[in-house]
Each structure stands twice: as C-alpha cells, then as structure tokens.
C-alpha cells in the first residue's frame, strides 16, 4: 500500500479536492517503504522496516491557510481531513507572505527509480551485513555498519490545475571498521539509486584497509597543510560543501545576514568568490545522481547553475522573495554536482610532494556565519603523504576553515563520485587550517 501508482494517488487526491470548499486547496501524498539493518561488534544489533503513506491537505481562505494530515484513505477520513484543514485555516492569522497556488506545470520525466532497489528483501540486507562482518572477522577486525534502503513516491494536485507525480529509490550504506585494540579505524560510505551497483564487500574492504593502515598514528604539529579531501570528507556528516550549498539563500543575503550580503545592501550574485575551476550545478536527470523533478510546492526542478567558473550565478529564491525582489523563483533542487577532472584520489596523492589525506570530517559546526567558518575533526583514516606516496598514518586534527577560503586555495580537482545523492570530486587544497590535535581514533 505504501507505494501508490500515479493513477491510484491522483484518484485519491482528486477525491480530496472534491471535498474542499476552500478558495484554494492543494493536497499531497507521500509514501515510503524502507528497510534497514544495523550491526556493531561483528554482530547484527537491530533490523527494521517501515511502510507509510501520508496525506497532507492545505486549505486556504484568502490569505489564511491551514494544513491537516491523515494516513487512512476511506472517504470519511478524507472528508474529515479536508474539514480539519479548513477549520484550522479559518482560525489562522493572515499570511503576509501569501503566494497563490501554482497552476499547471511542465515537468521533466523523472529517472530516479530503480526496480532492483524496490525489490530489496530482508534477506538482501542480512546478506550485506553478513558479508561485511565475515570479511572483518576473517581479518581480526571489528565491523560496525548501517544499511538503509527505500522506495518513495510523491504526488501533488491542487484546484488550480497542478498535477504531479514522481517515484524514487535509494540505498545508503556506511561502514566503520576498527582494530580490536582500538588503535586503527577506517570508514567508507556510498549511496545509489540502483541497488545493483552496491557491494558491501567492496566498501568494507576499503574501510578495513584504512583501519589496518591507520594503526600507530604519529602526531604532527597542527598548522596549515596541503590536504586531499576525499568526497566523503566534503559531503557526508553535513560536510563543508553541503554547508556552502545550504548558504546560498537569496533572502538571507538580501537581508544582510549571509556571507553573500553586500556591504551597504544587496547581495553578491555575479561576483567571483571562488577559484575559476569551481562550477556547481543541479540536474535532476543526471545519470549518476537522478533526483526529483518537482519540489514541495510543485515548482519544476530543472538544470540550474549555482556557481559557474568561480562566480555565484544563482541564489535559492522562494516564490515570495522572487516576487518581492523582482527575481525568478528557483525550485528547491534535489542534488548538486561539482564539476571535476579525471584524476582519482590515487592520482592526486601521486602528484603531492607533502600533504595529508583525509577520509572523513566529523562533527562539523558553524563558528561564524559571516565568513562561513566551520570547525570539525578528521576521522577514520588520516595519512601523511610525501613524494607522491602515503608514508604513515597521522593523529586526527581539528580544523577551523571556511569553504569560501578552501575553494580559493584549490590545487586540483579529481573525478566526482556520488555521496549523499550529490556528485562530489576529491579536492586537493593548500593551506587548510588545522588548529589542534585529537587523541581520538
């Protein structure tokens, strides 16, 4: 029941709209079927599965809006849900940022669904955990991992003629391998639309190699270093590049409370703020990272450039803010893609005289929104590079760095890979600021 077809979903939404007496009414259905398995200490600890479909109805009288939800779909429940949304709307204050609902829209054909992922069974998950654990047990290492997969759908319809439907699938896996004495730790993570590409063994092998290779780390003095940041260091755990992408809001910039605010007023759209090799865009039809073709409001998601050759080319702009400032609204994107080259992480290491390879950055928090300064730590595989080779593991560092400074200190960009639904290249950065050492392994 959780994944409704387009026809099934639209039939329910049509019925919902039929019950509405409001000036404007929009209804959405969101459904998911997900499963997970978690393991630690080389043993499965928990496993779960969820199924859920939820209806949300927004009713509007003038500028007053109310939302109600339901997760049963008989006529009486649908009717009650609409009535409740209308009652809440009547009691609500007028919304000074009211925007009329969208009319009919043209959408791209979504490509974010893979049947192989929708067909995942509990046995598939148990097998993945079993493979990962077996590999580590054989090497006298300890595995802790988590696999989650899901199939999702969204349908949207309103009384202005808008109609939308999309499905997607996702597999997300992460693995931390530790040595039994706690002196070495390695990590790998990957996610896919199509489960056929997933191998728990291959990813566990990477994490196991890093764990074994990171034993007996040496301490280096904190300071400015050339670093090679692997894609997982840039975009997992709320990474530095994610944080940069979340900071591209037009409203915050115009209001004067963003790194993109201009002295004296206005924003820095169009200014060159990064190295000219930096280009980041969104594309819902990218074959590696397909995403949704409409956002929550029903705006069509299309290819959109955010940073082109170091220049800020577009800012996220809501419909309200676009109208207020005379701009075009931007749909909220489902992915971001940083353009890169052809070099692998290995190639980047080969061309490095002295530097540090970083597997993962962790507990990243903003320190100063004015400069986008963030702090956090390296984790699960940090190595010293000399003359194009990894020489020895090093103790973890705390960094204090801004992605704006980092993307001006760019030495090289490698081949992008998928992380968290985005395409992220490994980056070689000079003068990356490590401010203290950590004893954590």
């Amino acid at each position, binding site marked *: 029941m959780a994944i409704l077809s387009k026809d099934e979903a639209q039939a329910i939404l049509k019925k919902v709209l039929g019950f509405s007496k409001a000036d404007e009414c929009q209804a959405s259905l969101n459904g998911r079927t997900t499963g997970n398995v978690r393991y630690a*200490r080389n043993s499965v600890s928990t496993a779960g599965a969820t199924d859920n479909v939820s209806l*949300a109805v927004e009713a509007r009288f003038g500028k007053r809006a109310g939302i109600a939800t339901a997760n049963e779909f008989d006529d009486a429940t649908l009717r009650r849900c609409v009535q409740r949304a209308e009652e809440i709307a009547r009691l609500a204050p007028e919304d000074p940022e009211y925007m009329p609902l969208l009319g009919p829209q043209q959408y791209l054909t979504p490509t974010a669904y893979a049947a192989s992922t929708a067909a995942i069974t*509990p046995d598939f998950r148990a097998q993945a955990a079993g493979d990962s654990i077996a590999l580590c047990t054989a090497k006298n290492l300890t595995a802790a991992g988590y696999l989650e997969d899901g199939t999702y759908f969204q349908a949207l319809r309103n009384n202005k003629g808008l109609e939308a439907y999309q499905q997607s699938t996702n597999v997300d896996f992460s693995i931390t391998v530790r040595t039994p004495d706690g002196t070495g730790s390695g990590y790998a993570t990957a996610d896919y639309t199509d489960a056929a590409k997933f191998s728990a063994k291959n990813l566990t092998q990477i994490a196991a190699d890093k764990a074994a290779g990171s034993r007996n780390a040496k301490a280096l003095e904190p300071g400015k270093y050339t670093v090679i940041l692997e894609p997982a260091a840039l975009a997992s755990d709320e990474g530095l590049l994610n944080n940069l992408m979340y900071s591209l809001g037009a409203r915050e910039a115009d209001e004067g409370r963003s790194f993109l605010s201009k002295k004296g007023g206005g924003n820095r759209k169009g200014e060159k703020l990064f190295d000219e090799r930096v280009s980041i865009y969104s594309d819902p039809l990218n074959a590696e990272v397909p995403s949704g073709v409409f956002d929550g409001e029903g705006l069509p998601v299309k290819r959109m450039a955010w940073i082109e050759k170091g220049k800020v080319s577009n800012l996220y702009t809501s419909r309200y803010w676009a109208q207020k400032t005379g701009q075009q609204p931007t749909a909220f994107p489902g992915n971001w893609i940083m353009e890169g080259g052809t070099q692998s992480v290995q190639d980047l290491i080969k061309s490095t005289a002295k530097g540090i390879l970083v597997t993962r950055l962790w507990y990243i928090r903003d320190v100063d929104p004015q*400069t986008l300064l963030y702090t956090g730590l390296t*984790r699960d595989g940090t190595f010293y590079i000399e003359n194009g080779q990894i020489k020895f593991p090093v103790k973890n560092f*705390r960094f204090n760095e801004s992605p704006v400074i980092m993307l001006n200190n760019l030495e090289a960009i490698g081949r992008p890979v998928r992380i968290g639904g985005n395409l992220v290249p490994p980056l070689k950065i000079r003068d990356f600021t490590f401010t203290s050492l950590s004893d*954590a392994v």
Partner: protein
Amino acid sequence: MKRRDFVGLTGLATGALWLPSFPGFSGTLVDPARLLEPGLDVAVKKRLADAALNTAKAAGATYADVRIGRYLNQSVFTREKQVQNIASGESFGAGVRVLANGTWGFASTNTVTEAGLAKAAQLAVQIAKANSKVQKEPVKLAPQKGQGVVSWKTPIKVNAFEVPVKDKVELLLAANAAALDNGASFVNSALFQVNEQKYFASTDGSYIDQDVHRIWPNFSVTAIDRASGKFRSRDALSAPMGMGYEYLQPKAEDKIAGPTGTGLIGYRNSFDMLADAALAAQQAKQKLTAKSVTAGKYDLVLDPNHLGLTIHESVGHPTELDRVLGYEANYAGTSFATLDWKAKGQPYGSKLVNIVADKLQANSLGAVGYDDEGVPTKEWNIIKDGKLVDYQKIRDQAHIVNQNESDGCCYADSWSSVQFQRMPNISLKPGTAKLSVDDMIKGVDKGIYIAGRGSFSIDQQRYNSQFGGQVFYAIEKGKIAGMLEDVAYQTNTLEFWGSCAAICDASDYRLFGSFFDGKGQPPQVSAVSHGSATTRFNAVNVINTARKI
C-alpha cells in the same frame, strides 16, 4: 538534498506543504483542541498490553514488553511581526519488544487493537528468531521486579496545551517587538511543547502509565550594520524544561543576576522572554563593535547556560555504556573512557569535580518515574572527587560491568522506535562553600566570562572539543572589562576538567537542556538536562575565530 537541509536553509520559513519536520515532532497534524482530548482508558491499555504479552510468550518469547504511546506536540514559529507556522501533532501506536533465543526482536503498529498488538508481538518474535542465527552475544537482562499497576506524571502547574494558541502567538510576537524596539534588525522565535502519554507493560508484571511534559521557548535576535556589512546574533538564554506553561510565567525568585557589569540575567525555573529578548537585542548590537579577542590562555568563568553543553558533550556522551562498548562506532562514535581506562583509576577532573546522573530532578527533561523498560528511576554517581566511578546502563548492559541493576535510562522517542540506552540528566554538583559569581570573578586576573550555548564540536571519542557561546566578557584584574567577540575555546576533556578550580554554591545552580539530542541509526532524539553552578576553569586555550573572505 534531504528534508532537514531544507529546513536549515530557509531558517524555518517553510512553504506550502513542506511541514516543519523536527525530529520527534512527527505525527498526524490535528486541531489544537485534539491535544486536550483524553487518550485510551488505562483499563483498555492494560487489556491491549496483555494481548501482546500473552501472544509473545505463546510464540516463544522468554521476555516481552509493550509500549502503547500517544505522543502529542505543538510548535509555533514567528519572525518579527508575523506568524510563520503553527503545527499541532499527534502520533498514536504501540511497540512490542521481545527476547527469543537470547535475541531482541521489535515490531510496532498503529493498529491499536488486541489483534493488532498480537500481530506485532508475533512479528517481533519472528524477527528475534531470525536474527538469533547471526547473534553472537546472547542478551542477558539485569533482574527487575514487577512494579504492579502504577502511574507517574510530570508535576506541571499549567498544561501548555490548555493555553490558547493565540496567547502563545501573542507572547512570541511581544518578545519579537521587545527585540525590535531595542534595535534588532531581525528576530525569529519559537515555542516547542511535548506531551508523551506512555503506557508500559512487561512480562515482569509491570503496568506503568506515565504522562510526561516538556517545553522550550527559544529565539534568535540578529543585529546588522549595513555600512560595514557585519551581522551578529544572540540567542535566548532560556532552557528547555520538563515543565508546563508555568515556565513562561516569570517569577522574580527565578532570576539570577549575572556578573556585575554584564547586565545578564540567568533563569532558573521560569523564563522572562520579553526581558531576555530586549537584552538580546542590546547585546547583539554591542557584539557588532566588541573587541576581537587576542588568542591565548585565559581563566574561563562559565555560566550554567553555557557549561551545560560542555558537560553534555564531554561527560554525558563518553560515559554512555553503549558508546564505550562500540555499538555506536559507525555513527556517534566510541569513547575514550573505556573499561580499561576506568580500571586504571586516572583522574577525569580535579577533586572538585563531582558529576551525578539522575532521572529525578524536579523540572528536568530527564525526570520520569520509570524508564522505557519499566525500571524505577534513581540518582547515581558518574564522577566522584574527580574519578570516573560509573557509566549509564540499561538492563541488557549491567552484566557487562559486573552489576546487577539497570540505571533506568532506557528510552525510545516514539512507539515505533525501539528503546535503547539514552543519556539521563548529567549534572555538576555545586560547590559546598559559599561562593557568588562576583566573588569568583574577583579572584580572576586574566579571564573570559561566557554565557549561552554557541558553536560546539567534539571528536568521536570525546577528547578534543571546541565551544563558542552567546556572549563573552573580558575579565581583567578581578573585574568585568567589556564585551569580547570571536571567542572559542579548544580543549581536551581531561585537561579541561582537570583545570576546574572553583564552583559557585547551590544558590547559583540551574538547569541547561538539550531538546533534540540525536543518537542511533536510524536516528532517535531525546531530551536531557544538565545542572551546574557557574564554574571556573584555569588556563584554557582560547582561539580567535575572525576570518577575512
């Protein structure tokens, strides 16, 4: 991009059908009046629970527990002169956990009927038996006497759900107006309220009905200097509390004056939102021109509304036994405070450091009568006279540290989540000798006073941390000497607690809280308080965080 990123991006300004999605704030959106309707009668819940327990036993479970939960929440968001969002949510269902073949199994259902619960119990047993094939460490439970038929309720004075939404909106908009009148450029404010109506029953013979309330008012005030392009914000000095709406009815006796020369007011069991919003606007403006700190070693005097977060990160998390044992290795991390480390008896802090865990403190977020596996709550020592003496444990962990009793800190954030070990209140005991904040500052030659929760980051084993704050004041020769900016301190957990030099007395003690503490995969939230009095730490490394871009 994920949903939570969207919320972060838009600063809570949600549009159309994107509902504000905060962890633990899920459920069906309902009319606020629904939050006052009674849940199932306790006799009905007992009958339903027995259906689950009997089915589990018949299917081969050696132990079973069932949680029938009705989770209610309401959030109100405003900015400047307008309401952004009001949402009232209800989530109702049941979770059944069983032990079969020495392995846990769990299943949940929102079909809260005898048949629905029996089906969930059967599924839980099936899952346990399937997982037992790959189980290498059979579960051993600490003994727990059945509690019989009992109940517990947060001793609130005013149920926040009985207060009309209109009054809450007026309060937030009045706080915003106070900030704007005092020079704020922007202000966002929010009010979160939670009521967990939880029924727990187990094959040990416990039938426990609990009614738990929590509340958190919060705001962030921003001041902007358009000419220089500089902006600074100051967040509320409130704490999330295990209280009703009485927390928002300010009382003079709950106001604790900060150091002379700062104008700061700390809040104990009630919060004056209007007064703090006005002060926040003045302080946000002062921050625009405050002196940038010179990096170096300073003696830090830390306000309880700041120190609570440092306690949370550097004592609360590393003493969770599941982290110590490696169950969180792939996500939250492990801990430096391993069983071997503890056995060596090295100091965790100076002899002044006494840290207690509890689920009892009045008005705290952790206070309940019984945890989510039916264990009566208690208080116990974590650090005594500077030494680590114990961890945080639940029933299936006690035997690992050769103990025979759970600490009662098992929790699940929903009926649909499986319960696991979560942090109880972790608090620093106040000093026993009389000492005021001003007297403490008199003894500091070169220092910084810090109040409020700012930026925070700590490694996965909880050694190296960095903390900011909301407001910073220089201390020179025993006196407050003006506001500072760009301050963060970097420290190592053992050095930090080792440098603890003085703690104010109980008259300065109050609670800080974390409303959305995350742990586990899939992630669950929990709420936890941390009490302390203002405390001095000597010679801590302070960095300057200003940068040019």
